[in-house]
């Protein structure tokens, strides 16, 4: 039963891909239904496994695959993976619903949903893989699917170039991860992650090389300064539902990678030299992303740069190497996914309603679209770290971790950096929704498939802010699996 549910998390999207690729006629008209059903099934399977996890079991399954090299098809769900796989499956469902209402249906629609599902399968597999080879395959699958989506469905003439830039940048990061994985494999002689969990004894020099490769490689996926360069273009050009998946779900895979590999395999002593550089990079990224958000004119780019800033918080939290900091970073990833998906959905509505995306040409939309204004307001306040919204809780913990880390000034710097976040979030909201009214187009009826998930996410941001205990509990369990579990 557990094995079925576990494989369904990855298999449901993959079956949807096959169905969308092979079926004709009926499937063409119901592509969105198939994708939505698969996303729902994937998410439900994760929750179906939750009781088992709480009962102390770790659902896992494995088949031999390439016995010569000790490679197996191994999936495993533990507490460390759970927050990320829930985030990924949830965001996928929301993104599918949103594109249901947002995109016109044409002959290419089944292919679009098939690629969305491939993207989702890549992320689900990345979080569940218990084998380095398998991990890397899913890791690249997610890049390939999203890259095709940007290249074919992106907005503007530049989409080909943007997709290429996205691929080259993130693939460079992937290659660093690959090199680190292969180095680890070479030393442990085993492809299974269980070898990593039981601890790896590496020569200090090798451990440092592996650590640098992992941290830098995964940071590219997180898009922290200065390896963020792919993000603004990719997020701006991608179609809205893909942007939601990129920003809300895929960025968190970088965090997962850091937690899963260097943080699981190494001891605190081995990882300690990376703490300070990670905190500094996180701080710089937090400030830089916020400043760029203030400077940008395109509403989608503003929110895109806000991801750079928010991922800076996450990296900072991880770098503190304290219980609060790392738990806060994990929470921040989940909450950021909720809020960032919400903001992009609202931006999509604004662009659709106003027909333009330059912030100086927008204004006063609050009267025409009060619900969108309210939802965006929740998102903007959440990004600004306002209590009692979700991101407040996680930022609080990240700051607490920063103050405990022994680098007090970095903690102070991070708190001050959050002021800039408040600045761009409120400026953005005010610019778009209040002030002189821009001549808004006739707003058609907005599909329920857009309204319901948007409002739901706004409510979720509030609920999570008020009752963080269950999700915090997940993150707490996950922490016992990393850095030797001694906090």
């Amino acid at each position, binding site marked *: 039963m557990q094995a079925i549910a576990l494989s369904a998390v990855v298999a449901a999207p993959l079956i949807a891909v096959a169905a969308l690729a092979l079926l004709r006629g009926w499937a063409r008209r119901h592509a969105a239904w198939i994708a939505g059903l698969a996303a729902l099934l994937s998410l439900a399977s994760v929750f179906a496994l939750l009781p088992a996890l709480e009962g102390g079991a770790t659902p896992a399954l494995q088949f031999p695959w*390439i016995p*010569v*090299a000790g490679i197996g098809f191994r999936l495993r769900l533990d507490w460390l993976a759970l927050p990320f796989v829930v985030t990924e499956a949830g965001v996928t469902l929301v993104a599918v619903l949103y594109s249901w209402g947002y995109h016109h249906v044409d002959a290419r629609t089944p292919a679009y949903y098939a690629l969305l599902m491939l993207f989702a399968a890549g992320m689900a597999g990345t979080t569940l893989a218990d084998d380095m080879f398998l991990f890397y395959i899913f890791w*690249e699958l997610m890049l390939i699917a999203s890259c095709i989506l940007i*290249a074919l469905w992106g907005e503007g003439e530049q989409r080909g170039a943007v997709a290429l830039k996205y691929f080259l940048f993130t693939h460079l990061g992937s290659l660093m991860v690959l090199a680190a994985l*292969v180095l680890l494999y*070479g030393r442990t002689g085993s492809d299974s992650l269980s070898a990593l969990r039981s601890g790896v004894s590496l020569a200090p020099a090798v451990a440092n090389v592996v650590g640098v490769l992992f941290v830098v490689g995964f940071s590219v996926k997180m898009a922290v300064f200065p390896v963020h360069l792919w993000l603004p273009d990719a997020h701006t050009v991608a179609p809205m539902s893909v942007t939601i998946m990129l920003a809300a779900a895929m960025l968190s895979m970088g965090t997962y990678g850091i937690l899963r590999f260097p943080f699981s395999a190494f001891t605190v002593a081995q990882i300690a030299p990376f703490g300070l550089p990670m905190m500094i990079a996180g701080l710089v990224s937090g400030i830089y992303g916020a400043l760029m958000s203030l400077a940008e004119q395109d509403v989608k780019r503003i929110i895109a740069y806000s991801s750079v800033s928010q991922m800076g918080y996450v990296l900072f939290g991880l770098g503190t190497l304290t219980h609060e900091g790392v738990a806060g970073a994990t929470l921040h990833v989940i909450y950021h996914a909720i809020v960032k998906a919400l903001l992009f959905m609202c931006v999509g509505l604004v662009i659709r309603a106003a027909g333009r995306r330059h912030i100086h040409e927008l204004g006063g939309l609050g009267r025409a679209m009060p619900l969108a204004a309210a939802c965006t307001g929740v998102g903007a306040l959440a990004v600004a770290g306002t209590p009692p919204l979700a991101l407040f809780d996680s930022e609080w913990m990240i700051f607490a971790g920063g103050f405990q880390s022994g680098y007090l000034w970095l903690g102070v710097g991070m708190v001050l950096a959050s002021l800039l976040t408040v600045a761009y979030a409120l400026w953005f909201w005010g610019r778009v929704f209040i002030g002189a009214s821009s001549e808004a187009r006739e707003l058609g009826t907005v599909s329920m498939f857009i309204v319901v998930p948007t409002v739901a996410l706004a409510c979720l941001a509030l609920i999570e802010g008020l009752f963080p205990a269950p999700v915090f509990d997940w993150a707490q369990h996950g922490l016992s699996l990393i850095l030797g579990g001694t906090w």
Partner: protein
Amino acid sequence: MSGEVLLGLPLAILAGGAVVAYLIARLARAGGSALAVFTALVLVLALVPLAAIRAGPAPRSGWALLSVGSVLLLGDPGALIVGSIALGLGSIVALYSGRYIADDDRAKLYYPLLVLLVAGLLGMVVAGDMFSLYLFCELMSISAYALVAFRREEGMAIEAGFKYLIVGSLGTALLLFGISFIYRAGGSLLLVSAPADLAGRTWARVGIACVLVGLGVKGALVPLHTWLPDAHGRAPSSVSAMLSGIVVQSAFYALLKTGIALGFRATDVGLLLIGLSLLNMTVGNLMALAQTDVKRLLAYSTVAQVGYVMFGVGIGLRYAAPDAIQAAFYLLLAHAAMKGLAFMCAGAHPGAATVASWRGTAQQLPLVAAAFAVSLGGLAGVPPLAGFVGKWLILIRSLRQADLLAVLATLAFLANGLLSLGYYLPLIGSTFLRSTEPAIETRVRPSAWIGLPLVGLGGLVLAIGIHPAPWLEWMSDVASALLAWGH
């Protein structure tokens, strides 16, 4: 039937097949497609005895040996594998040619030449003495020269064929020279019973140097590769598929076999191969980056890919690592399928010679575009395709060596993987981008003769990549045979 007879049978079938094919072409009124099917059948028929030797118990104790007059055949595992790949690829190419070559005048003479090419290739790898090695090498080369210039009405075909002829003849002449020197030193042409101290004798060293250069020309070892881009780029695509897919690799295998059989130390051969392989991949990749013509680009990519195979074999011989050799032969098989597929796709889209003109293929010829993407993705090492698995397996073995040479070489290997993305990705990208110009008029008629080989070979590329275990198992004894020979 005993292994000895089985070893001679394929060559007899091919020789007979070539004659019958020629007679059918000259006398019967059968169409070109019937001849294509006949040729494919001959090649498959020749494959049967080889498969029987591999399946039988005999080769585990000692290799099949057949002595007819002064010709000695030696069916060591590697030779049987390279020969089988050649026969398999050849039969697919023959089917593909049924439509591809049909409109050429003299089309029917193409098939006997194709059979002779494969016969020469097979003979070269199973040759057990240097005289028959030379003989079969010439047979293969002469067929190849004729096939490269087969479309003599096309602009550069004659020039490319002639260049290949001149450079190739120089190579075979040097090969003959080398063989005579080795004979002077050892008094025997046999590859099975070389005197133990032969490798230390001056004339044997001079001889093997000549053999290295001579077969190096055929195997496109940089800097002896200059004929290759012209020949592979100008030949009919079906011929390029054979030349790039297996002909070059078979020359490499013959070289390897000769060197090892004459008693040169495996570690020395390994070192030489690692050095040469780095040269091959770097030059091949850099030159491919500069190409705008698709077939020339694929040709240079062959130079690089031969380098990857050599790298694996080199690591295996240098560090007595059988799994690296196994992975290298797996990559050789994968490359034959992938590069064969890539050239067939190029042939199925004759209007598009340059990278830019591949734009819009996905709309015009979706099957060709999909097959092309699979082959290029595999060549670029995109997981989970075959090229990735092969490189991964070679990497994990080479990184296990702590010595500086291995580490530096592995880094160069990784860097080359990245470099190669620079030309594969734009090509994949332009295949899937919409064309800005009106559709090219010279659209090939969709034909099962072209479609089926593309689908079959594409499926094979996927199968080799996704389920590598049986293919690796097939190559399990190559390494032990080579290593045992070398000591």
